[in-house]
């Protein structure tokens, strides 16, 4: 089953073959799910990806990239997801692409080279305890004092903050009442005085973090774009990265592991098992097709908010359906520690992180169907 529904041009498929060859050295790494506990190995992998020029594969020539289309980025990270080796790092995607579009020359020169080389890493600092899905309501303050901002507040559910160099963060520089129009985007050094990172252990055995910012000084040149203008930047950044955020091959792999496990425990002839697996097989095709709609919108430069929301929604829900199948099927072997029950715990996060399913449904309802003035 390990064939992508998407077949690219001859050159693109050649590129896929290169990626698969590259990955063969890293098989078994499982940095896709365990970026935290496998950090040294994952970091080495990213460096190697950087050496291939693939960290910056989609960046423009002028920015030091290969200038390839989004299709290659999709192939790259989809194959990485299938092999479970790594996720696309924030730095090479959202951070770099925002810097390329909106950064100053100095900012580009400072950050793009180490990102491209796979040497500097970023963690996403958007969510706060009082503003998870409602980013416009966030309250971490940044006040300008001469040549630097003083940032105070708290970010939470922050992935990989324990290992990253920088926090790519949204802060309030305007009034609370201005909601989204009072926010600025900055790069905050996670090793600066006043930053404390507290781990929040999660039920999948990894960790999220609480990042407390106590009067952290951030140089004014670390602000990206104009003050209070972050909202548009954040949105634009999502638009150019949405095709690699939820690689469908991860689900293909999930289902393959489930099928292997069901065969190992000799459940393959059970009619209930067969019905369930067939339905999940259809689900994997569906999510792949939705991911391709997203890719198409990115490639053609079309607005793709609805496609992206549908893709995220279906991807997240299918990951849970696959993971929960052994439990629905009443197979108590699934309770014992191992890859099958791991997916159960891990996938709980999928409908929450990166925008909850409720938010996604609201986007589809509002923008796709014109419904619901309220969230």
């Amino acid at each position, binding site marked *: 089953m390990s064939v992508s529904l998407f077949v690219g041009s001859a050159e693109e498929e050649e590129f896929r073959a290169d990626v698969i060859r590259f990955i063969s050295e890293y098989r078994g790494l499982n940095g896709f799910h365990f970026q935290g506990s496998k950090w040294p190995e994952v970091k080495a992998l990213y460096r190697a990806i950087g050496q291939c020029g693939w960290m910056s594969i989609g960046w423009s020539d002028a920015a030091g990239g290969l200038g390839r289309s989004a299709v290659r980025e999709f192939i790259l990270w989809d194959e990485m997801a299938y092999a479970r080796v790594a996720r696309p790092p924030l730095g090479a995607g959202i951070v770099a692409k925002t810097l390329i579009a909106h950064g100053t020359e100095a900012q580009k020169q400072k950050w793009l080279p180490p990102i491209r080389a796979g040497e500097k890493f970023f963690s996403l600092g958007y969510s706060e305890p009082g503003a998870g899905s409602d980013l416009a309501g966030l309250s971490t303050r940044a006040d300008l004092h001469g040549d630097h901002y003083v940032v105070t507040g708290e970010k939470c559910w922050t992935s990989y903050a324990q290992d990253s160099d920088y926090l790519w963060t949204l802060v309030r520089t305007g009034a609370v009442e201005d909601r989204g129009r009072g926010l600025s985007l900055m790069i905050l050094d996670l090793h600066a005085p006043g930053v404390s990172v507290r781990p929040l252990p999660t039920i999948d055995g990894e960790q999220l973090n609480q990042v407390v910012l106590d009067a952290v000084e951030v140089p004014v040149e670390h602000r990206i774009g104009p003050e209070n203008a972050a909202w548009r930047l954040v949105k634009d950044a999502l638009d150019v990265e949405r095709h690699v955020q939820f690689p469908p091959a991860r689900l293909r792999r999930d289902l393959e592991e489930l099928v292997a496990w069901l065969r190992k425990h000799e459940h393959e002839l*059970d*009619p*209930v098992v067969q*019905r369930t697996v067939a339905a999940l097989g259809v689900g994997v095709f569906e999510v792949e097709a939705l991911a391709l709609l997203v890719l198409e919108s990115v490639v053609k430069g079309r607005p793709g908010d609805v496609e992206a929301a549908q893709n995220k929604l279906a991807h997240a829900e299918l990951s849970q359906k696959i993971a929960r199948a052994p439990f629905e099927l009443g197979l108590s072997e699934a309770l014992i520690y191992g890859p099958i029950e791991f997916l159960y715990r891990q996938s709980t996060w999928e409908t929450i992180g990166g925008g909850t399913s409720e938010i996604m449904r609201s986007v589809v309802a509002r923008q796709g169907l014109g419904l619901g003035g309220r969230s």
Partner: protein
Amino acid sequence: MEFGWSENERSYRNQLREFLAAELPGNWNEMSKDGPGSDAQAAFSQAFCGKLAARGWLTPHWPKEYGGHDAPAWQHAILSEEMWAHGEPRGPQYMNVNWLGPTLMRYGSDEQKRFHLARISRGDVLWCQGFSEPNAGSDLASLSTRAERVGDSYAVNGQKVWTSYCKNAEFCFLLVRTDKIETRHKGITVLLVPMNTPGIEVREIDTVLGDRYFHEVFFTDVRVPVSARLGAENDGWGIAMYALQYERIGLPRYARSARTLELIVADAKSNGRVIDGAFKEKLVAARAMCEAARILYYRVIDQRAHNQPPTADSNVARLALTAADRAVGDLALELGGPAALLYGSLGDGNFRAAMPAGVATGTSEINANLVAQRWLGLPREA
């Protein structure tokens, strides 16, 4: 706490079953398929209710003075359960017994009680319920059918819709607006209107649910004497809510759902369809949902038996009833296979009925809101 039946209750149930076995015609399953509004069933039900009344089983839980026997709440529950388990042979008269009667007892004038309650307890009258309007479905407080006071009567103008059974009904329990529309629920009045009053026009709506299921009713300058008003002018909202409370807890529809499940299995078997493990599991699950609705319904009866005021537990029970209806409907479709497409087959009937399950009651969402707000104490949506 205990979950047993007393000797009396058991024997009452047995008598009912014997009675039903004797009274229901051989083609009853076929006849009841098209719903209580169909002409065939309406005629049968009329006669059947008369027989029930003769045995004192039509309104056993009513006070003696109104033609009842002061029977305990549980006896009434057993009666309803057995009726629904047998396809509700009382037809539309379940409404009379369940909520019209109690509402009249509470709010009726002496004359209204004397006249209407006697007829209901004899089982020889059909009522319909004039609540919904084209622009006021679940949101009853926005209804706009007007009643203007003209001397000793009201002149009623407007339209009701989704009215069940009214082709055969003699009276309508009608909600009208007697004050400005902005007063919402404070300007509503109840009238007890004879359906043969000039100016009333009934049109059947062609629905998928069976014959005579829904109607539109048009009121053009219909004169209703003030003496036919139930309670005071503009006090209708409280009366309607009182009635709805009874309606909402009154229906052991799980018994019908469970019966449908049995019919489905029998049907599948007779069509030579194999019921494999996958379906067996679903059958058990659907039956469990019927049982869940039953036990939650019992909880509500228990409160009534203890003379406690109704609580959000009745909304919990209603949600469970709808869930069971839907589970059984889905299963009927699935188990039927392509044979469910045959016109008039069990699967076909269930498809028609299951699609709007939860809508017919119109209030699934309101029930969920009430459970959230009253049972869990969550804040109202701003």
